[in-house]
């Protein structure tokens, strides 16, 4: 289970990085455009834009292994969660509103570190695919000597 505090951080509009790999262990990375934790906080559903998500979506359909890194731009606080895909489906209308709100929040985060809001808010988010992942492990990822250490008290 992901802690309540961590869930709040993940859902606060911070940057979402999605890592996947193909059948030959070739890695790939991209930006997600929205995230929600499940009620039991054991799964995360991340939205991937269809236009930029082709390779990542093919990867998760192939083998289901996913890594997510959430980073707050202002202080680089970062956390990485890894797990297995449990569902891949078209995003709903409700999730479309989520994605639009995410872009707005995220553009605010990156504006603070110098990316003009007019640029950040242009990150395309629709149509999107919702990828749900059951979280198996959580790691500290804030740059520094303890990056990569497992977060205790989480799955």
């Amino acid at each position, binding site marked *: 289970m992901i802690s309540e505090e961590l869930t709040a951080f993940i859902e606060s509009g911070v940057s979402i990085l999605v*890592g996947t790999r193909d059948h030959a262990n070739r890695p790939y990375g991209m930006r997600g455009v929205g995230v929600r934790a499940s009620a039991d906080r054991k799964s995360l559903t991340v939205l991937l834009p269809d236009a930029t998500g082709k390779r990542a979506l093919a990867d998760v359909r192939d083998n289901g292994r996913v890594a997510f890194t959430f980073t707050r731009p202002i202080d680089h606080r970062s956390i990485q969660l890894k797990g297995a895909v449990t569902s891949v489906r078209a995003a709903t209308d409700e999730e479309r509103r989520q994605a639009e709100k995410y872009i707005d929040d995220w553009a605010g985060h990156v504006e603070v570190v*110098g990316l003009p809001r007019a640029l950040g808010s242009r990150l395309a988010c629709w149509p999107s695919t919702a990828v749900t992942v059951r979280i198996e492990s959580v790691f500290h990822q804030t740059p520094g000597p303890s990056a990569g250490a497992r977060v205790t008290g989480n799955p």
Partner: protein
Amino acid sequence: MTVRLRDLSACFHGIIPSIMATCSKDGEPNVTYISQVYYLDESHVALSCQFFNKTRINVGENPQAFVQVHDPVTFEAYELDLRFVRSETSGPTFESMSVRIQAIASQTGMSGVFRLLSADLYEVVAVRKLEELLSATPADAPKPLPVTDHRSELRALQVVSERLNRAVDLESLLSSFLVALGEELGFDHAMILLPDEARERLFTVASSGYGESGVGAEVAFGDGLIGTVAREKKILRTSDLGGDLRYGRAIRGEVTGSSLAHVLTPEIALPGLADARSHLAIPLLVQDRLVAVLAVESKSPLGFEEWHEAFLHIVGNQAAIALDRMIEDEEVGPPSFVRAPSLPPASRRSRALKFYQSDDCVFVDDEYLIRNVPARILWKLLKTHTAEGRIEFTNRELRLDPWLGLPPVKDNLESRLILLRKRLEEKCPDIRIPSCGRGHFRLEIDCVLDLKEI
């Protein structure tokens, strides 16, 4: 869409962090931000390894890797499929990345924690533009930066070079160099620092484009961006948007082991733009000897590109030789006699000057003025004037005075006099030391002196 790596130079400034993905041999993906991708050649890039983390472990067992870089102006993204080649712990790639990281570490008080373990070299297997990352372009979207017109910069180079050649003394050389950098090459915020006698610290001798001149501000070798450039004798260029890589603040000279430390600490701040987004510092060398450091700043995160570095290298080489010649030159010309009008005795105010022997510094009316060699020079001039009434002095007699502690060769006397002259202009304009021909200067005093040694 296929893209050439060299067309992506703006993406390699480390302004927007890049996404990096790797995968363990067991098929577990890993994704993280990395601060900078270094361009090496058309088919190779280097990434810095500062901590032996999961990324590094993964590429050790599965060399396939991936990065996504952003153009910092348009925010368009490019994808690079990579293959890990090797880790280097020495050599030119390692050295240049290491210098940059040391400067960041020193600037953020992280020396020792934050250091380059290795420069990791990757072959670039494929490069693509990531299409449709951004929604449709509005009419006012930022355009990519125009390609620089190098011909006009070549002409500018010629002008700078001519100005350097025309300078007759160190002071005019320094000021015409800074003016030329601003007018001809667009470096509007610049400063020049010279190493002190012990070659442990640098002092600011001239600056342009700052409200406060900062003349006299000191930086220890190895400290921050400028100190690192002095110690390593390597050029450093940085651009950044934020977080722990933010450089844009002034460093203050530090006073250690001093009973007056609490008084002296805020003495003179290094000039700096509060909102600087790019910095470039270059060592001015003659053979392998450091003559000076030139530091420039810009408010634009893309203020400095490779060609700036290349041009400053050329200009810097010329300036180094000219500076060295001026500093070394012992030639003494005939004195000229142009005297500034002095105030009539009735309107003279009293100035209290104190020389603190233990701290080797002079305060004027309880405000810090100057220390070390220039402080001793001032004190000698004032005492000689008080005792003998003299107003004419020569560089030679200062060199011969052992109390001043000038080294027998390659002394900094001329630059120390410039520093003293400028500090007096700023803090005590009633005392002036104008030059009156090469090797001669005059002491002009428009106040009643109250001298105390403590």
